[in-house]
């Protein structure tokens, strides 16, 4: 046991040292070449100077504290102790009284060495953080895209620094207290040996007044309250220490019809299955980056499996989960029953057929032509088209028979997303405009609209339902939603070509794409403001809920990743990051941080309502943290490595050097990917626990009353 632990420790520390050591080397090689000192100055001004000021202030406070202590020591001791006695509080007065009754008492002091160590560790930690940021920023900081990205990255780091400084401040105060400890001893002896009747009488008198207490029943009386209207709920009489905060349970709602419940659960169940399969393949691909000779089997070759992974998580996981949640949200906000359950089943079966057939095709070497996300050949993709068209008709006719006057904003986004995706799929698969460079123009549009018009639009629609629902308050501003909706359509549609900047595509089209990418700031900021303002004043609910953290992460990533996308379309950032793993990191941050987290939140929000079963809450926590930390391990190292790689390319260094540079970052990616994959297995288990019929222990009361009901059927009222 201890042996294996030791081994683990040595291995992990080896990995960490190895990685940092090589990274330091690379940093030197790459960064040391050419740079303007402007970047360094900028960095110093925005970061180091305030830090120095804060540290200076802390040091000053520390000095003042010590000074004050020594000043106090010089004061007449008796005079000082009398002053202390004047400020005794109630408890101390009681103690004093007891002492006078010849009872022993002990005062306890605490050690401070621990805190000093913590301070040193924290300070070195924050130093490490700087060390990592500095080299990347040196030569490139004159580029706006880079500056924005660094600022985005610095936000969480800055928060960590503030936290560290708060800790340091605390530790300094503790340290200053050391000198006071001596005084504590002296004062104790003083009190114990005190022999001044006047002071004694005064203190004992004050003790008597302090003992006076209200009975707390002066106003309410002693009769027990009767809650005849059942207003009070969720009363707990257990006061046990708990390991983690207890999260709020899902509110029981009127039961949905069993047939729609079953349909939704099947959609979500299939999606959970595809998530585990799809990311399992992704994990294997990540390993192949660091161990390319893992296998030599044609069906498992990297080139064939890569699109299998991306397409499974696109269509199998996210699309099925989205449509499944849509079957809950669309009728709910229309206040009407779903138009047709049957359409739902056909759509589910079609999508599953598409994913299975598509994966087999790709693994056996049948690919549509190599465009990203367009690897399924058209007969396979046709199944998805059928599913989409049926889903649209179904949702549209449900909205048509709504009993509310207005169409809730969620349904704007959800239905438009399906409608647009049908258009996108047709544009991408119809053969009339696909010759020559036309194929690439369509490809840019397809892969971009697939993300922005299907996943983002739909999921933003879901967020417009789930965030207000989980916070139990209306959305902040309907008008911001409307602004986001129309600007998203206008700008997102035209920016597909920004995946092919500097290519042979006409320059005017590339310019339109770059300008449109800038325009994306409007819908993104509008939606982010809307969501965060809805959260405002209700942050306490985030800590008490197991769904809201997922939604919150989705909102934060929505802002960060979309802004990053805008920045990536700038010309210089395109030179630096295009074709590198930065794209891969960005795609994962977006698809995982936004889409996947939002879908998990939605699933955890509605499945307990549908089945009446809660997931194990510690495991929901484990799922959240594994996924969250895993994603950071995945995205940050890849982005840093990709920046180094881009710089090597820009300096026309031999290509193989840029492969070698990436190696350590690919290791980190595999580590992050593993954490993410573990979280998916936990999620699948949680889902199983929410839908399984076997695990619950028998609820005696419930069962007894159920049986009584069966024996003597109550006549319908």
């Amino acid at each position: 046991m201890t042996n294996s632990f030791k081994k683990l420790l040595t291995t992990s520390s080896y990995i960490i040292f190895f990685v940092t050591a090589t990274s330091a080397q690379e940093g030197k090689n790459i960064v040391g070449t050419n740079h303007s000192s402007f970047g360094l100055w900028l960095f110093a001004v925005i970061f180091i100077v305030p830090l120095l000021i804060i540290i200076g202030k802390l040091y000053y406070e520390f000095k003042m504290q010590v000074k004050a202590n020594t000043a106090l020591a010089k004061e007449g001791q008796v005079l000082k102790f009398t002053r202390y006695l004047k400020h005794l509080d109630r408890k101390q007065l009681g103690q004093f009284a007891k002492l006078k009754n010849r009872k022993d008492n002990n005062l306890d002091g605490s050690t401070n060495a621990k805190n000093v160590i913590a301070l040193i560790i924290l300070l070195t930690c924050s130093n490490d953080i700087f060390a990592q940021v500095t080299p990347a920023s040196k030569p490139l900081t004159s580029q706006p895209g880079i500056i924005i990205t660094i600022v985005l990255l610095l936000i969480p780091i800055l928060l960590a620094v503030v936290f560290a400084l708060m800790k340091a401040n605390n530790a300094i105060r503790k340290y200053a207290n050391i000198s006071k400890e001596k005084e504590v001893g002296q004062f104790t002896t003083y009190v114990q040996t005190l022999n001044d009747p006047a002071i004694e009488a005064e203190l004992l008198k004050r003790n008597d007044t302090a003992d006076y207490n209200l009975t707390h029943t002066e106003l309410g009386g002693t009769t027990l309250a009767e809650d005849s209207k059942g207003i009070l709920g969720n009363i707990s009489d257990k006061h046990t220490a708990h390991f983690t905060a207890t999260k709020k349970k899902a509110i029981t709602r009127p039961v949905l019809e069993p047939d729609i419940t079953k349909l939704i659960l099947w959609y979500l169940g299939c999606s959970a299955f595809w998530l585990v399969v799809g990311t399992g393949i992704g994990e294997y691909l990540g390993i192949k980056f660091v161990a390319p000779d893992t296998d030599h089997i044609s069906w498992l070759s990297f080139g064939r499996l890569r699109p299998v992974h991306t397409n499974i998580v696109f269509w199998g996981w996210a699309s099925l989960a989205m449509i499944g949640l849509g079957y809950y949200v669309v009728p709910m906000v229309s206040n009407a029953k779903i138009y047709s359950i049957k359409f739902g089943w056909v759509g589910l079966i079609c999508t599953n057929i598409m994913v299975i057939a598509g994966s087999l095709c790709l693994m056996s070497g049948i690919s549509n032509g190599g465009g990203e996300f367009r690897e399924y050949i058209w007969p396979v993709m046709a199944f998805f088209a059928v599913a989409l068209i049926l889903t649209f008709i179904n949702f549209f006719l449900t909205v048509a028979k709504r009993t509310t006057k207005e169409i809730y904003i969620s349904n704007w986004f959800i239905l438009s997303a399906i409608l647009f995706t049908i258009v996108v799929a047709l544009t991408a698969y119809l053969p009339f405009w696909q010759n020559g460079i036309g194929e690439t123009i369509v490809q840019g549009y397809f892969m971009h609209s697939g993300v922005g018009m299907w996943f983002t639009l739909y999921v933003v629609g879901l967020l417009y339902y789930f965030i207000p629902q989980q916070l139990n308050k209306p959305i902040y501003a309907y008008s911001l939603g409307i602004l986001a909706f129309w600007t998203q359509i206008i700008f997102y549609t035209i920016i597909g070509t920004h995946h092919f900047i500097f290519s042979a595509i006409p320059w005017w089209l590339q310019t339109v794409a770059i300008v449109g990418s800038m325009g994306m700031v409007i819908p993104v900021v509008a939606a982010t403001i809307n969501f965060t303002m809805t959260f405002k004043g209700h942050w306490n609910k985030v800590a008490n809920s197991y769904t809201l953290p997922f939604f919150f992460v989705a909102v934060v990533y929505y802002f960060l990743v979309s802004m990053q996308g805008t920045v990536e379309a700038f010309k210089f950032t395109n030179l630096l990051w295009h074709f590198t793993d930065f794209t891969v990191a960005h795609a994962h941050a977006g698809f995982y941080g936004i889409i996947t987290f939002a879908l998990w939140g939605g699933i955890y929000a509605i499945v307990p309502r549908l089945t009446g079963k809660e997931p194990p809450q510690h495991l929901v926590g484990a799922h959240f943290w594994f996924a969250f930390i895993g994603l950071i391990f995945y995205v940050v190292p890849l982005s840093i490595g990709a920046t180094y790689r881009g710089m090597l390319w820009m300096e026309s260094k031999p290509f193989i050097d840029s492969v070698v540079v990436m190696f350590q970052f690919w290791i980190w990616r595999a580590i992050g990917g593993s954490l993410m994959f573990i979280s998916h297995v936990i999620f699948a288990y949680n889902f199983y626990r929410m839908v399984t019929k076997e695990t619950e222990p028998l609820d005696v009361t419930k069962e007894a009353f159920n049986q009584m009901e069966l024996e003597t059927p109550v006549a319908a009222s």
Partner: protein
Amino acid sequence: MNVFNDHKKLYSIAGLLFITLTYLTVIMPALQNQRNNAPLPGSVPLSGDALAGKNVYVAEGCVGCHTQQVRNVDMDKVFGSRPGIAADYANLKRMNVWQNTSTVMGTERTGPDLTNIGARQTSRDWLLMHFYNPRTVVPQSIMPSYEWMFEMKENPSKTDVVVNIPASFLEGKTGKVVAKPEVLQLYAYLLTLKQTSLPEGLTPMEFLYKKAEKAAATGSGKLSIDGKAMYAANCQTCHQENGEGLKGAYPPLKGSPVVNGDDLELYVDIIMNGYDPRPEYASMPAVGTNMNFTENEVAAIINYERTSWGNAGKKVTTEEIKKIMDFVKIKASAK
């Protein structure tokens, strides 16, 4: 506002807006480009083995890691002599009823761009070894092995293409490694990947974001080219980083009589025009001519090779090389 409460209006307006924008920024430009761009006069449509090879390229998902586009930026210059233009792709039509057109331009360069690979790397032995297992020739490579495109034969026939794989990569298998048709087709396809030269009178687009001339900054500017980097980019994949080559495939440069000797003319000729005098080794393609080496670059490579791995040849100057290069060029065109 009525549109918020009327589902027919709402979704038709949104749909029409989306379709209009799609038409303007996708369908219209795509149609325009396929109508207005003709293939360059010198370009040949794929056929036979090369066409079959392209299908292998698509099936194996090579596009996931290799691009085929030279952007009009200076950093892409290593992958082609001029930026790609729409006409370069005008030959490409729908592959068949099932499969779409495939420009395989790609969006990721985990491996190098292949637009001009048919000019850069033409050695069949090297490419086949590299397909069997890339780590036989490039130890740091992370490209997958395509072992299943080869078979083991005890007694290969005369028509079989035998590949010399170092024993350590055979994992205990016995016999000769023989290339199957699909990998030969893939090889045929890669050979066709060459930039077609523009018709007379057309000047290619300029490469943007040129680096400030480093040579000017260092003063003399003549020998500022990094010979080691040139070697790594152009020679290392065969002759290896340690200069020892690969037994049975590529001759060593360490201690080589050509590298250390005095026959500078032969040395430059090999670099510029290739070499194939010894049957036990693979033939060398015309690396220098394919990559348009200047006398500066050739001198840098020669000086690097003559001063590395224990070699002790005489250093050369650019002027010497320039003279020989002019002569070698005439010799090559006379061949």
